[in-house]
């Protein structure tokens, strides 16, 4: 246990170091980048990714994967934006509850199919991701909901400053705190790890593996639903292709943060740092003057590098347990 913990600690230290190096390199040429104000901006910009990556990490911990999170954002975001447009009198609280509830429902659909029918998560969410995004098109008819069609309250909330930080950032911070508590201090959180770490052992310990996966999907869906509102409100526009491809970013953040796709390994701190790492790069590219067209290739290269590093970490662990030559695989 100690070796694992120190390994993970190393991973987080490594990420902090990587983020710092990145910041130093950027600041060397563009001192304005590392002003507290700009860094707060970067954090704010990354908040949605952090939250969704945390939801994704819960799913990945249970040895599943949720490819439908971005489509969930598009569908819930479009729904609340259209409701806001069509029924301007609806209080914001109701809209947010609708976003949460709808996201939860969409996540529950995924989770239910995985739990009850034992269909592999990648197949289920591959299907639901096209269905959710398609439904966003059906309900909007392909039309956009623009800023002037949204109510001021709807647009203001994520931007409202509390103690100098926008609400969006505070929601992100709250999500991190809640995730730490959930992952390390609750039965469900530990069940996530147990399910992915060793499903057979988990069953013998009395953990319902299917139900745990279901709960992970519900969590991921609920977070995506909330982020659906935050996304359309922050960017002040809702259209079908909102957050297109964002599911890959959430997975990338998890992988960079040291979450093992084989399940059972990963920490909240790692995921948050992984997301921040991506966020810093995304925000730095235009500053350094690199065309945004580079971003995709760079994040691809980073994902590959991160997986290679993860795999090396896992291999070391295997050797310690076996004390023999690795099994030929």
């Amino acid at each position, binding site marked *: 246990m100690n070796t694992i913990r120190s390994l993970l600690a190393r991973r987080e230290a490594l990420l902090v170091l990587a983020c710092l190096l990145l910041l130093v390199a950027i600041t060397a040429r563009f001192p304005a980048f590392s002003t507290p104000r700009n860094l707060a901006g970067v954090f704010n910009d990354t908040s949605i990714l952090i939250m969704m990556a945390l939801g994704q990490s819960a799913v990945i911990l249970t040895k599943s994967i949720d490819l439908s999170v971005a489509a969930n954002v598009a569908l819930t975001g479009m729904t609340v934006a259209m409701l806001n447009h069509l029924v301007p009198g609806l209080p914001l609280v109701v809209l947010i509850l609708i976003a949460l509830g709808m996201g939860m429902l969409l996540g529950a659909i995924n989770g239910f199919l995985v739990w009850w029918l034992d269909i592999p998560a990648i197949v289920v969410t591959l299907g639901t991701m096209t269905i959710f995004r398609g439904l966003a098109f059906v309900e909007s008819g392909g039309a956009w909901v623009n800023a002037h069609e949204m109510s001021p309250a709807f647009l203001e909330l994520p931007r409202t400053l509390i103690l100098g930080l926008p609400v969006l950032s505070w929601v992100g911070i709250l999500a991190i705190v809640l995730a730490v508590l959930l992952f390390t201090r609750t039965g469900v959180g530990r069940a996530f790890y147990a399910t992915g770490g060793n499903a*057979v052992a988990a069953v013998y310990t009395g953990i319902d593996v299917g139900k745990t996966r279901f709960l992970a999907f519900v969590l991921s869906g609920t977070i995506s639903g909330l982020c659906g509102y935050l996304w359309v409100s922050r960017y002040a526009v809702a259209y079908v292709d909102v957050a297109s491809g964002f599911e890959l970013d959430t997975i990338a953040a998890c992988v960079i943060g040291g979450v093992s796709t084989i399940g059972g390994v990963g920490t909240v701190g790692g995921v948050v740092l992984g997301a921040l790492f991506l966020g810093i790069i995304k925000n730095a590219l235009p500053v350094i003057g690199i065309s945004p067209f580079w971003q995709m290739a760079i994040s691809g290269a980073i*994902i590959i590098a991160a997986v290679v590093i993860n795999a090396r970490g896992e291999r070391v662990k295997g050797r310690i347990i076996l004390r023999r030559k690795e099994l030929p695989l």
Partner: protein
Amino acid sequence: MSDQSAILSPRHIPDRLDGPFKRALKSWETLLLAVAIAIAIANSLASPYFLDPWNLSDATFNFTEKAIIALAMTFVIVTGEIDLSVASIIALASTAMGAAAEAGAGTPLLLLIGLGTGLCCGLFNGFLVARLGLPAIVATIGTMSLYRGIAYVVLGDQVYKNYPADFAVFGQGYAFWIFSIEFVTFLVLALIAGVVLHKTIFGRQVYAVGNNALAASFSGVKVRRIKFIVFLMTGVAAGLASVMLTSRLGSTRPSIAVGWELDAVTMAVLGGVGINGGTGNILGVVIAAFVMGLVTFGLGLLNVPGIVMSIFMGLMLILVIALPLVVQRINNRRR
């Protein structure tokens, strides 16, 4: 993923097996074929233009490129891996061909470059998964970003369209009558894939790796080599699909073939290939390709927008997998 049910319920062994005819009747391929026929009938009732041979011929263009990838994807999925980078390989190969065409390359060279780029991408995927032992989902999500990312770096918001006139033959030419070169290529490749997967030692080894990689390696199967080869196959298949698609469209943008990896996986899974590896056959995938082609084409005739079609695709993927399981559940409960 069925860890729990495997522990809690012992495997059900029937007293005697069904006869070959009954088994064939109950098989996945028969179900798919029935679905395909039902869709074809529904389509011909819904639109008078459906049964026109040239219309049907046009319809094949919608899915042959994807189906060619799905054939190779079948091998990858049977080994228990997955390749999500195929669509990005198309984009990269298309970009490479476009750049070569700008520089004045002729059609044979373009074909080579397209296939070669696919091969190189497949090599890299194979290296990551088979050599370094990375989980295929994440590794190919990484290369998916990387390959298309390179296409974006090269092209940005530009477009390559200076392809030589005779390059159009791959995507627009006809072999004979209504049979396009694309379609005939697909049929030939399907035949080859069927023979290789079902009638060769290599094919059996692919199944062995997917069923139990450890047992396979103890039986002398070179697991890493098999995995490496199947990734080469998807790479080359994607390269070929890229040649066809580029030739059909006559232009290259970095956003070419976005989302096709999902279609290829859907085709394979719809065709009865178990996503956990070890099961499935080429015939099912070929029928599934036709089912998907018929659905897209029929909905297209009814003026259904592409994104709504994707809802049908998603629903079909889940329903076709879920329904037999639901039926099985209900039967088990009754027993």
